[in-house]
């Protein structure tokens, strides 16, 4: 298992994932600082919010693209066949891949959290709250990306599905909001079918809109209970996705 994890880390280095994402994150932080410095007041808060929001999106996009393309390329180059020809169970293979990608995510997120803490005056409990939620969000996204890359035959389809899933999950709060207040859409009638469909989707899709809120960095936690939501959500969803990936991978014929 450790060999597989090490192999994934090496491929991340080979594909310039760390270097590329590091440059992108530095650029995002620099642009955010510049934009923040031109605000009338609350310049620091502006920079923090822009940095937190933009780096989160860049990181997760990078992780999704890397995981999907890495797995699909491994299939095409028959690297996976080589790996599973060794004495490693398919369950261990999926877990090792997930651990490897999760470790990469951690290695990318930890310096980001440290940099935000060092360069800006942020609320410390809020930073820990935000940091832990981003890590859990990354673990969930890694699990989903791995699952889609294992079941779909095209890397592009896997990436598109992951983006769809991510945006849908981030929109769950909005869906629940419009289900509660349909009168806000004066010219659109949801109808029973759409309403039921939205309800069904909201049951299945995780609430990623409760993760990585940049106001924690500015105002602190202030009795916010999102921690319970994002920890529980991750505890339910990550094992579920991994089990699905294992189930599918075990049925696969090589």
């Amino acid at each position, binding site marked *: 298992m450790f060999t597989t994890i090490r192999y994934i880390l090496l491929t991340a280095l080979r594909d310039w994932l760390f270097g590329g994402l590091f440059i992108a994150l530095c650029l995002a932080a620099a642009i955010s600082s510049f*934009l923040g410095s031109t*605000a*009338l*007041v*609350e310049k620091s*808060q*502006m920079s923090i*919010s*822009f940095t*937190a*929001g933009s780096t*989160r999106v860049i990181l997760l996009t990078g992780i999704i693209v890397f995981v999907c393309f890495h797995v699909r390329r491994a299939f095409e180059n028959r690297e996976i066949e080589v790996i599973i020809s060794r004495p490693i169970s398919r369950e261990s293979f999926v877990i090792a891949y997930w651990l490897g990608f999760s470790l990469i995510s951690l290695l990318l997120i930890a310096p980001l959290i440290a940099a935000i803490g060092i360069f800006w005056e942020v609320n410390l409990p809020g930073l820990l709250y935000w940091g832990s939620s981003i890590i859990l969000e990354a673990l969930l996204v890694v699990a989903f990306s791995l699952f889609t890359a294992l079941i779909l035959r095209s890397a592009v389809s896997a990436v598109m599905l992951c983006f769809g899933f991510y*945006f849908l999950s*981030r*929109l769950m*709060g*909005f869906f629940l*909001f*419009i289900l509660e*207040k349909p009168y*806000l*859409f004066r010219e659109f009638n949801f109808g029973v079918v759409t309403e039921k469909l939205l309800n069904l989707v909201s049951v299945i899709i995780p609430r*990623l*809109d*409760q*993760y*990585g*809120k*940049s*106001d924690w960095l*500015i*105002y602190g936690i202030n009795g916010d209970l999102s921690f319970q939501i994002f920890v529980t959500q991750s505890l339910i969803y990550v094992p579920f996705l991994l089990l699905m990936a294992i189930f599918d991978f075990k049925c696969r014929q090589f």
Partner: protein
Amino acid sequence: MSVSRPYLIILFLILQSIFWYGIHIGETTLWKGSRAIKPNLDIVPVVDSEAMVKAISFGDNQFYFRAMGYEIQNAGDSFGRTTPLKNYDYSELYKWLVLLDKLDPVSDYLPSMASYYYGATQNPKAHLPYIVDYLENHADKMPGKKWWWYTQAIYHAKHKLNDLERALEISEKLSDIPKDIKIPLWARQMRAFILEQKGEYKQACEIILNILDTYEEVSEGELNFMLYFIKDRVKAMELSGDEKIDPRCQQLYESNMKKHSKN
């Protein structure tokens, strides 16, 4: 059939020119041309609905609040243009400010922008009522913490709009802030100043007296100012002779005069 390269280039240029300039036959226009399509350069962007804001924020309300706040800050001054504040649609601006306040009622970014930047409009009569309403609306959410924006609203109403009634209305909210919340005494006295400007000296004196009675920790400077205020208004009332002076005001005035004559 082979077509030579120069003919292809000429054909491309003709098609592109038609696309750019449009197709006009006599007075009929079949295609306006792509040069007629310009970016929408509204000064104040169209206000989103609350539902749309929830959707676009993707769960990070703070990010959206800051991003849209920044857009409102630079509205009308983008793409190399500058727009005088008199040309802004303040009713739309007001809707934006109220909408964004729902995302973050704690931040002082928007009220600062509204008061110090948009408050400097060249058309105060038409525009400032929106700013005053917004500042009052913003402070209403947390009067104890946001009292400063009441004073700013009063400033705009009193000095720029010359609307003493509106200023008085807001100053009542300042006076109503619970005693245990620490705000400067001058803010609590604001109502007295406005009443005094309206010529209602008696009521103004009573407010100052009430503050003197209610607050134990009054600095010497504040105390001197309040005594001066009472003295000055009692004198004015005596001169006008048409208002009945509160006996306590008179008493304070006389004792103060005696103190001064001794000195």
